[in-house]
């Protein structure tokens, strides 16, 4: 008899937890480009964004180099998402929709001087920050970030 009552109680226990609202997955928030490794990530609470800087092998090598001797052929991609609160956990913000994809490519002239080609795809034609209008400054900001520590 005790077993029957236990069964009733346990079923009540689980039925009380069965209220579920399925989330809508958002694959459009994913970014991927073959051959790119994560160099680092950035949070900017002032403008409410969260970013990842990816790089090709050359860019990755440069990011690991404390002296930052850039060479031709490095390719950086900085993807920036709008921050949003993490669903179901107050205390964490996460990436929402992608708002910009910036690309930096290093090239060298005959004298061996390295320059930085910068291009960006910004949603709604808006710049995130007026300071970023200086493309060379922005390119150096992206290309000069040190690699985050991985084991």
């Amino acid at each position, binding site marked *: 008899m005790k077993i029957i009552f236990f069964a009733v109680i346990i079923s009540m226990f689980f039925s009380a937890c069965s209220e579920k*609202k399925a989330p809508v997955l958002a694959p459009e928030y994913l970014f991927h480009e073959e051959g790119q*490794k994560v160099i680092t990530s950035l*949070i900017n*609470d*002032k403008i409410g964004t*969260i970013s990842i800087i990816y790089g090709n092998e050359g860019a990755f090598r440069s990011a690991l180099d404390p002296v930052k001797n850039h060479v031709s052929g490095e390719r950086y991609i900085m993807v920036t998402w709008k921050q949003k609160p993490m669903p179901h956990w107050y*205390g964490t913000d*996460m990436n929402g929709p992608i708002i910009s994809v910036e690309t930096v490519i290093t090239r060298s002239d005959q004298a061996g001087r390295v320059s930085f080609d910068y291009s960006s795809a910004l949603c709604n034609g808006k710049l995130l920050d007026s300071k970023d209008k200086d493309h060379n400054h922005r390119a150096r900001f992206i290309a000069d970030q040190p690699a*985050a*520590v991985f084991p």
Partner: protein
Amino acid sequence: MIVIIGVAMIIFVPLQFSSPDLGNPATKKEISLPTEVKAILERACYDCHSNRSQPEWFDRIAPVSYMVGHDIKEARSRLNLSEWDRNPPAVQQLLLWEMVNAIEEKKMPLPRYLTIHPNAAVSPAELAVLKQYVNTLPGRNMTDTSPIVRSDSNKRMPLVPVALNGIHYFSDFKTWRIISTTDKYDGGSMRVVYGNDLMVQAIKSKKLPFPDGAKIVKVVWGKQHEDKDGNILPGNFQNVQIMIKDRKKYRSTEGWGFAKFDGLKLKPFGKSVAFATTCINCHRLLVSESDFVFNIPTK
């Protein structure tokens, strides 16, 4: 009618003799809280999450007493505000944030408990008080000011680290796709979350639950000080957290195998295989509808 009452009495009366004891163990170390916060918790949480339970008379009558006894036992094992020093300080903070989240998500107090104990309900204003409180905890906005220590990539690890549940560390996640990136401001860390092909395909096809073989790897760093433009960069590496889906192998943890490897030496986390229970308890409470995963891109 007399027969029905008679049968009911035959069932009901003996049950009372085997009813569980709802007594309180001694209070060891009570949590210290601001008065207004404590008042909310005493009314909403203490009946189950402390050694100061005060069950109503009807809670003590079987078969209700069985359910109440089960709830109190389970609740004390998860969070006991009367044995607070059982948890290290970092875990205490995490438990307090989890408590706020459980209330916000309306998972706590348990809805069926609220039905017969409406006085335990936490109002939006009271939840705001609790949120304000957790935002004063030391982990909030914690920054990593230590010089960044880098591993020597030329040095190979002597052995592949293995978690107590048998999950091996692996490094090929670095070629996987990123499924999310997070700012965990409750504990001062930032994370990049990778998913293997099966995980990414499931997200792309908007399919839940995730299939067996789906894997998630979360890389965790401290947060450096904000620069003048508002940028915050990763500080020291803290840990790698792994989730592997295998419904059969990890049945007791909702089909997910958990592993965590701490520091650059990737020391397996936990003192016993029960460490995974701590992980799934929180995931089960708050994200059962997302196949027990927090870090997925959702609208």
